[in-house]
């Protein structure tokens, strides 16, 4: 009889999944959990503040796409036995650690170093949350997962002692399967030709570059409109007020939209505009690529690594460079050339690839 090999066990901290609205790190956590469960190479346990959580409410939250129910269930004593997490198993934190040196082996995840490198874009409380314990976190980590090579490089530039433990943990895109079917049965969007911009409108997203570029010859000649998925804030009003009316009419702000609406807006676009000054990974680029959409991205930080050959890159602080790059990518021949590269590029980021380094680490 062949002996049955026990799978290594891992405890995943699911604090991010307790948030009501899932974007960014909660979505990353959800993908990580799903990738590990699907992989099957590890036995996955869950915890919240070192308290064990059974799988059922976590999986229910993942199915619902929100943490509100999970929070309620956790706070209901009847449903929980208040069991402490298993410290004999490796503990994995998909974000910032809240405990240090509890388990024999711990790993945390670094998403970006923007609080260290660009404090001017953050509130002090947010900087403190990310940085006050970072050195201790790294010191007690057996492995530090970085979500891109650029993030790993930035981490090691500031904390060289983490060199031996910093590993890559790429994420992937997983649109719900029914999106494609439902979208196919809906009439096309009547927006004319447009490019899409995805993301919260905040200074480091650099939307101002696009708004300033609207005044350039290259963009005045272009028939494209620009659909911004995200709320309208941060200096946008000021920029918009300074634009001629014709340029203003070319900007559309969707506000907060559902995942399906985002899917449809990306699917209907010619390409994605991603002018960010700094990204830890840049998931909107991968989302667009997964739908065959090329990406006009800045060459900053992690974006070249994610976009690869599937786009045109530009200097994020140069309006002229951006306008030239936009003219290049908007050409139908270029779009046709890049579309298959976008799909193949996104196909390289899979759930297997996300699960593998964690399973390998958990196996010791």
């Amino acid at each position: 009889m062949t002996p049955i090999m026990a799978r290594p066990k891992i405890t995943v901290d699911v604090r991010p999944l307790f948030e009501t609205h899932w974007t960014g790190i909660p979505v990353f956590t959800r993908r990580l959990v799903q990738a590990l469960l699907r992989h099957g190479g590890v036995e996955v346990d869950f915890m919240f503040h070192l308290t064990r959580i059974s799988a059922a409410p976590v999986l229910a939250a993942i199915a619902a796409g929100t943490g509100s129910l999970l929070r309620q269930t956790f706070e209901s004593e009847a449903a929980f036995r208040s069991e402490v997490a298993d410290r004999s198993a490796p503990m994995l934190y998909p974000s910032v650690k809240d405990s240090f040196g509890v388990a024999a082996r711990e790993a945390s995840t670094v998403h970006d170093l923007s609080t260290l490198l660009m404090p001017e874009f953050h509130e002090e409380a947010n900087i403190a949350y990310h940085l006050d314990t970072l050195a201790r976190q790294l010191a007690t980590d057996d492995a530090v997962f970085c979500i891109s090579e650029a993030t790993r490089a930035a981490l090691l530039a500031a904390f060289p002692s983490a060199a031996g433990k910093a590993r890559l943990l790429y994420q992937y895109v997983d649109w719900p399967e029914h999106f494609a079917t439902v979208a196919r049965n809906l009439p096309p969007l009547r927006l004319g030709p447009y490019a899409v911009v995805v993301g919260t409108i905040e200074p480091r997203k650099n939307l101002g570059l696009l708004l300033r570029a609207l005044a350039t010859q290259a963009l005045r000649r272009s028939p494209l409109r620009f659909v911004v998925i995200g709320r309208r804030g941060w200096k946008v009003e000021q920029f918009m007020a300074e634009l001629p009316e014709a340029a203003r009419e070319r900007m559309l702000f969707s506000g907060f939209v559902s995942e399906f609406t985002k899917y449809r807006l990306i699917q209907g676009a010619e390409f994605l505009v991603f002018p960010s000054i700094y990204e830890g990974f840049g998931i909107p680029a991968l989302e667009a690529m997964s739908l065959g959409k090329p990406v006009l991205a800045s060459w900053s930080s992690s974006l070249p690594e994610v976009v690869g050959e599937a786009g045109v890159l530009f200097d994020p602080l140069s309006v002229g460079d951006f306008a030239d790059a936009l003219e290049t990518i908007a050409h139908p021949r270029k779009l046709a050339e890049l579309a298959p590269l976008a799909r193949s590029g996104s196909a390289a980021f899979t759930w297997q690839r996300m699960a593998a380094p964690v399973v390998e680490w958990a196996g010791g």
Partner: protein
Amino acid sequence: MSLFTGAALLLSLPGAEVERIDWPGSLVAPGEILAAPVSPELRAAVRLVWGEALRRGMAMHCVARPELFADGPSRRWLRTRAPGVTQHLCLSDGHAIKPLAGLQTHVFFYRLVDRANMLALARLCRRAGELMAQVGSQVNTHLALGDDVDAARPPSVLLHAATPLEHPPPVLLPLFYNCNSDEDSANRTEQAGPVAAERLTDAARLHYLPLTETALDDSAFARVVARTVLEACFDPTRLLVLRLPAGGGERTPAQRIAAMLPALRHSGVVIPRASAGNIVFATEDLEEDHTKLARLPRHILVHDSFDFWRHTPGFYAGAEQVAVCAGPDPASPAHLPPTCLPYDVRDAYGPRAIRRRIDAAA
């Protein structure tokens, strides 16, 4: 490797200043920064470093945001456009030090005289000690960067200004001191109106104290300032000029006076409630060419955190004495990390400079 090594130097700028400007690109010539609406302190720092680079026959490139160049294509882009660079000087306001992989990073804290910046650097030292350990050298400071005995002590590189900081002539406001109300003191001082410098030139001697927020956070130094004020109250032949701390943001002279007076009030030194015509606040630096005051025999008193490079060596050379007050006072924020290391004050302030020890018990 020393800071001024190689064919060209790469200078990076602090994010808070960069954010306010629409840059023409990620790599700009120093002249473009000098023409941009940056703070006078940043402009002076750029001019200072650029002047030194030119003197050594080096080119200088400026990057608005070094954090862009994290990996692969962006680094290649930079290497292509700024060839021959091996050294990176990070101009920092204390809130961040941005390393550039592949280059040796040095740092120039050009504005630690503002309380918020010094406290930000103290936090950064606690949070990123490893980052501090990589700093190759520090320009115009003598700081131990870190949180403990293992704090990094990068060697200092001193650069002296060829020209003083750009600013308008100072407005001189005679002190009215009310120990019960800083606001009343400030308002009455401002309401009395400015006094012409010519009316003050009869003084036998000028004592000039360029005050900063960081300096006044050192309670021992604040006590020295208060005693100097008290002595001037009893000696009308002595003219005392207190340069008001600039602080952050737009503030009226009355607001700036009201903000600095608590340091005197909490010093434990009793200052009489009176209007003293020989004690004046100056809204800007006193320069040799601004007023005739600087021609008086003068003593200059500064805290060891003072940014000496605000003035030219000639300014200090014209003084009878330059006293540089050094702590430590472990209880005051100025002496939280980063601490100022002992150094020969004559290197910064010229041959007439002396070190004056102060302590909390004095």
